């Protein structure tokens, strides 16, 4: 499978601040790739380097088989970008902005635009300054999804949308995935990434700390089990690979490493389990693990992760 883009060892400094500290990131053609991290971790900076808006101090980037700093026109015709902070021209109407951005990319489908305006419930006649944050974001989203491109780069696209509109956004992402197009979705909303993404990369302090498919990553985390037992829960806490065991009468809650799961299930059976609820590991746990107990953790990151 080929890569829509690939970055290796990206370093970007702003003065003394190191924003990117050796980013390795690759997104395969046709996948929806989640790019997770709190504010300030370097998501937007990475995207701006990919788009040729910032120049990396070190490292290499290949974007759609080109150099994003040199082949601007050729590459940018094939991608659509939704910035995290959408700023519109105050005197241009939303419809004008959508048409303009689409045409600057190399074309936009009017029927698709009309359909998206309808689904996002956006009035295209309002002037740019009259839109709320959510509506500004919708303008950028309609302009992106109405364009005929191979790659969508979306930087926290739902941060201003209400739940209904977030759902419309999810449908749009599913549609473009079904058409075999690639999506890079930067976000700090774990539920969204979990729902939409095939693979995930987690960024922390300018470094990618984890990359893989959701099922790969779940292997790294623990399943939570709640059970009601027929016999006292003695000895369960001593099993290797179990954590945070709490016993309350006949109820027991514990977390289990993937490798220890068969043994734990066998012992639960021996203890005459009457009820059993097992929760798959969530991305959130994985995320918090990286942000809470990492070797260099500091208070700034905690704020972002929680």
């Amino acid at each position, binding site marked *: 499978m080929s890569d829509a883009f690939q970055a290796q060892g990206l370093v970007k400094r702003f003065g003394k601040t190191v924003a990117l500290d050796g980013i390795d990131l690759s997104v395969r053609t046709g996948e929806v790739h989640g790019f997770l991290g709190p504010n300030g971790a370097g998501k937007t900076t990475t995207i701006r380097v990919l788009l*040729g808006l910032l120049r990396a101090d070190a490292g290499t980037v290949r974007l759609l088989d080109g150099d994003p700093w040199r082949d601007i026109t050729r590459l940018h015709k094939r991608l659509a970008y939704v910035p995290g902070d959408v700023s519109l021209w*105050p005197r*241009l*109407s939303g*419809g004008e902005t959508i*048409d303009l951005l689409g045409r600057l990319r190399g074309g936009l489908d009017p029927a698709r635009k009309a359909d998206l305006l309808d689904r996002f419930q956006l009035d295209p006649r309002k002037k740019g*300054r009259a839109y709320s944050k959510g509506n500004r974001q919708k303008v950028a989203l309609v302009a992106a999804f109405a364009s005929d491109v191979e790659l969508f780069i979306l930087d926290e696209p739902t941060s201003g949308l209400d739940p209904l509109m977030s759902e419309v956004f999810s449908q749009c992402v599913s549609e473009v995935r079904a058409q075999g197009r690639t999506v890079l979705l930067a976000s700090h909303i774990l539920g969204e990434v979990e729902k939409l993404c095939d693979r995930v990369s987690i960024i922390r302090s300018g470094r990618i700390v984890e990359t893989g498919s959701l099922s790969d990553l779940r292997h790294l985390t623990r399943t939570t089990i709640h059970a009601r037992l027929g016999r006292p829960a003695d000895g369960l806490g001593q099993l290797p690979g179990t954590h945070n065991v709490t016993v309350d009468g006949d109820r027991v809650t514990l977390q289990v490493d993937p490798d220890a799961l068969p043994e734990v299930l066998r012992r639960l059976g021996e203890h005459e389990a009457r009820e059993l609820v097992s929760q798959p590991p969530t991305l959130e746990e994985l995320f918090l693990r990286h942000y809470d107990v990492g070797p260099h953790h500091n208070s700034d990151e905690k704020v972002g992760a929680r």
Partner: protein
Amino acid sequence: MSELVGTWRLARLALRRDRIGLPVWVLLAISLAAGPAGSLADAYATAEKQREYAEGVGSNPAAAVFSGPSLGVEHLGGIVVKESAVWVLLLVAITSIMLVIRYTRTEEESGRAELVTAAAVGRHSRLAAALLVVGVADLLIGLGAAAGLMGAGLSGAGSLAYGLGVTMVGWVFAAVAAVTAQLVEAARTANGIALAVFGATFLLRGIADSASVANDGTGGVRLLAWASPTGWFYQLRPYAGERWWVLGLAVLTGAVLSGVAVALSQRRDIGAGLLAARLGPPDAKPGLATPLALAWRLQRSGLISWAAGVAVGGAVLGSLAHDITDMVGQNATAAKAIRQLGGADVLVDSYLVWVLRILGLAAAAYAVSAVLRLRSEESGLRAEPVLAAAVTRTRYALSHVLVAVFGVVVLLLTAGLVVGLVHGARSGDVGGELPRILGAALVQLPAALLPAALAAALFGLLPGATMVGWLFVGVILLIAQLGPVLELNQWVMDVSPFTHLPRLPGGDVTAMPLVWLGALALLLGAAGLATFRRRDLDTA
């Protein structure tokens, strides 16, 4: 008073935000007022010299359009008012307007006002804080100017009238801005309306004062000055028998306008304007598909306003040209003053050179604002989506530069056509005057482009310092107006690109300066484009 809760805190916030800009502005205004007093005292030390001034610049109706009526110009105080006051008034009025808009409408437009209003802050506190900060700064300027003028040996009463006169003009226009801030949603438009009010009343005063000087202080037209706040400054008569009650007129006007602003603000929602925003088209016209089309769309309304301003200014100043010989008459000193400004042999031509120079400077100022649109688009994050589309850096920057060049050509053409037609019609020789005046206007193109080219170079190399482009325009204006009068060193005069232009109409045409000015502009512009292509986009 609950409606004013938090005013003091908001005022301190404004002081914190502009802790450098505000003091610089105050000191600049004071030094513009008091600074020239010393050198003018040297230049016009004797009664003989002062009489010469009164008969020269003092009786020149053309100069009065800009510099005000000639009240008490047979003494040093009147000369100081005539030479320095207009600059202080321009600086104080325009800055007062822009600061009030900055603290009120800009805050609403950005959404920051919502944050503030949601806190324990009264309904009128933001407006009150804005007027408080600007009002106190205006007062400091006035008192500082008065102290400075007294320090230069001028009379106490006159100096105080001068200073407080400046303060009152600042107050009135701060209150005008407080009203326009309520009217429209866009800060740019609110600024534009308030500045247009200032420009219109300034022009009205110019016409009135010109008529006053031409008719030796008589005639009905001179009374139009009473309709203009900058006119009140001169009617306060610093150093010429002060009329203190004029101050009351200004304070009353400021208070009424502030009351209107408060009343208007109660009739609207935060963030909204009283004049409802109109809806736009749901689709873009087919042509809106390139960076150039976008740049033109963003800048065309600005260019139309500039062209209208140049046309009005050209018509007023151009219509005086035919009378200049009669007005000046046998007065050799006045003729000499005009010849100094224009530098041509024939008196009318000399005057026309000066008129076209002023309009050419307006074109240069426009070009700087057009090029710096690149900077405001970049820092407003609106360049980012365009550059993330299939648009190269060079093409993007070039689109705004092309609009600027086109705009300068349009403005110079407007200036040449209007002045040529008006003067031609009045002198009964359109066929003869129009071509030579049009040519004289257009010959300024390379000089008018140079400040914009500097701004473009800074945009690429030092994007944080693009304001230097405006500074250059200000220096050129000062050199053009004060240089010949103060008889500045030639090397100072040479800083202005306009100094190197042939004196047209009437003078000899030399191609060399045009070629090297053009080459320099081209070089600076190219440097800007080349460096912008290599630098990071400013996304902070």
